């Protein structure tokens, strides 16, 4: 990759710039009358030159990489002349793809004519030329920056302040990445979801009772011929999350209470990390456990007692997911329970209440907002969990509340809709983004509500 080479060259030049700048700063004082004193250490002068050398060049590199594909495409298509005019955008896309394949020497979808060959030749020439052009231009810019930075060095020059200012801007820039990620998530989900809602009405998606996206794959059934009613998916997600919470909340909460109120320090120091192992196990391992160990057992047990248990039942996925979530509930609840001030407990003991009475009637009510917050976080975790349900829950979108039947979830559908499918315009793939948007929105709301509740609670006892 040429970008790597260019990066290496720029970094090399920057290192040279550092060396030259530092040397020049030392020269400035030793040649002078001796009274001249540097404002900043020589190293900062070097750093200043290196920054002038590297930053503009890296800026150019980024800009170049962003614009290169578009420029290449424009230049190549313009060699075809009026052949492109009036073609539908998809056809142009296909044509351009062919030119690129031809240039790369791989198979094309049509027999190449002379014009196409010429275009492919020019494309190949340009593609070979551009990395070299980039290297030359970037190096020139780096050298120019180096010379400019070096010229500005004087004994009184505040190189340290200049370098620190740049560093601070670099820090600020990097702190925006997290925000840009969120914006990227929202925009990409929203953009693709809107394209989906162009083809499938929003009301049908939100309130429709039938989900069978596969039919849309058939060539003669373009558009909204598949049914995209997401209610069964939402219901399935809710069912599995509910089962998971039925396992995780009692077990997690009672573990937390025991560890926070009853357990001796040594027991606590051992049990807490052991419980946290459950949170550290990759979810794909839980998926394997659910699908290959628990599911056959449950199915066999169901057969033995005469129940019809699907091999991909909601029960198995939910229970295993619940196990995974236990530590989330327990460690968050543990924190809020220990945050309840001692004075409250002592007030209750002073009245002659037993420990469990104190916990039930004083500690838990006081900790309730925090516990609710932690449960909400756990719910959001359950809804967003993917691998367990992909491996252990079903694909069929059944609208049922029977935990022994197979149901499907939002995350399962996203995975099945997108795996192995290259076509990016069909409602089938776009539906995955609509589901992703719903998932993102729900988990975001749950997280924000939970964080607000927990924070309010913390403030109360701080």
């Amino acid at each position, binding site marked *: 990759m040429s970008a790597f080479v260019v990066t290496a060259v720029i970094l090399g030049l920057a290192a040279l710039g550092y060396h030259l700048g530092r040397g020049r700063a030392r020269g400035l004082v030793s040649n002078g009358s001796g009274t001249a004193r*540097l*404002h*900043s*250490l020589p190293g900062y002068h070097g750093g200043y030159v290196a920054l002038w050398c590297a930053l503009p060049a890296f800026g150019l590199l980024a800009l170049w990489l962003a614009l290169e594909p578009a420029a290449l495409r424009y230049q190549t298509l313009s060699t075809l002349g009026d052949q492109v005019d009036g073609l539908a955008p998809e056809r142009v896309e296909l044509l351009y793809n062919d030119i690129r394949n031809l240039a790369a020497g791989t198979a094309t979808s049509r027999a190449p004519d002379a014009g196409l060959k010429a275009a492919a030749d020019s494309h190949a020439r340009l593609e070979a030329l551009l990395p070299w052009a980039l290297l030359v231009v970037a190096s020139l810019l780096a050298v120019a920056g180096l010379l400019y930075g070096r010229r500005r060095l004087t004994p009184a020059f*505040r190189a340290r*302040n200049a370098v620190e200012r740049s560093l601070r801007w670099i820090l600020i820039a990097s702190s925006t990445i997290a925000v840009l990620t969120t914006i990227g998530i929202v925009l990409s989900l929203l953009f693709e979801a809107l394209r989906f809602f162009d083809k499938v009405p929003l009301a049908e998606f939100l309130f429709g009772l039938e989900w069978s996206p596969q039919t849309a794959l058939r060539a003669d059934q373009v558009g909204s011929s598949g049914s995209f009613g997401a209610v069964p998916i939402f219901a399935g997600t809710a069912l599995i999350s509910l089962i998971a919470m039925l396992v995780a909340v009692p077990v997690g909460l009672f573990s937390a209470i025991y560890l926070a109120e009853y357990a001796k320090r040594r027991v606590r120091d051992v049990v807490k990390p052991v419980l946290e192992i459950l949170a550290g196990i990759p979810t794909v391992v839980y998926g394997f456990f659910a699908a290959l160990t628990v599911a056959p057992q449950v199915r066999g047990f169901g057969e033995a007692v005469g129940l019809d248990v699907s091999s991909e039942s909601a029960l198995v996925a939910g229970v295993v997911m619940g196990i995974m979530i236990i530590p989330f509930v327990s460690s968050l609840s543990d924190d809020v329970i220990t945050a309840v001030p001692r004075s409250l407990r002592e007030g209750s003991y002073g009245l002659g209440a037993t420990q469990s009475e104190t916990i039930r009637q004083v500690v838990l009510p006081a900790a309730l907002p925090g516990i609710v917050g932690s449960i909400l976080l756990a719910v959001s975790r359950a809804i967003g969990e993917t691998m367990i349900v992909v491996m252990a829950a079903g694909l069929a979108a059944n609208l049922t509340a029977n935990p022994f039947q197979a149901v499907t979830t939002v995350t399962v559908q996203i995975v099945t809709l997108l795996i192995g499918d290259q076509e990016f315009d069909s409602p089938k793939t776009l539906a995955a983004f609509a589901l992703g948007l719903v998932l993102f929105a729900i988990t975001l709301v749950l997280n924000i509500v939970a964080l607000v509740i927990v924070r309010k609670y913390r403030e109360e006892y701080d």
Partner: protein
Amino acid sequence: MSLPDDTTPPEAANMIVARDVDVHYDDKQALFGVSLDVVGGNVTALIGPSGCGKSTFLRCLNRMNDVIEGCRVSGRIEIEGEDIYDRSLDVVQLRARVGMVFQKPNPFPKSIYDNIAYGPRIHGLAASRGELDEIVERSLVRAGLWDEAKDRLRQPGTSLSGGQQQRLCIARAIAVDPQVVLMDEPCSALDPIATARIEELIDELRQNYTILIVTHSMQQAARVSQRTAFFHLGYLVEVGTTEQIFTNPHDSRTQDYITGRFG
């Protein structure tokens, strides 16, 4: 660095000149129009009850208040005739000229040597390894720590006792050769014996540095300082020679404080 004497305005014969210094923390005013002249080559003690603004004033002198969010300083403070709140002044160089020793000893978690060498290194005061060694030794000698520390320069500064740590911090402050050393209750975390050592040290350092010390202990102020300033509720009540303040205060509040009626 210092200006030629003939251009020095008469008022600035004093090392530090503060005029009408107000300090606000957000909405709360902590100092009200403090004007104080500090004579060079002296120890000036700042005394007063807790929360009277003496530490706040001390921190104005090397602009340590800059790092506290919501803190605003107005008025004029000059050191050797140079306005230290001037926009063009480099605060980092100011702090090299005005060193500081803090309430609790706060050595860096590095070796004794590196603790002292840090300042000279960032200010580029030593051209060679040998010069740096010299600076470290000189600073430790001046801080009266050389005999105890010379064989353990590579050990962490935190391995010293509390009193030694504080002397290490003093050595660290004087290693960059400041003109002024600010001490914010330097003995408050120390036992009486260690305190006596620091007080002796302060008296010796007076020959080379202008020292301002904030202290809670009036005996300490009387023992180490030549001049004393009394602060109360954010106002500078009275300033004069230590002898005058302790024997013949002009203000009744000063009188009440030094006789122990409040504070």
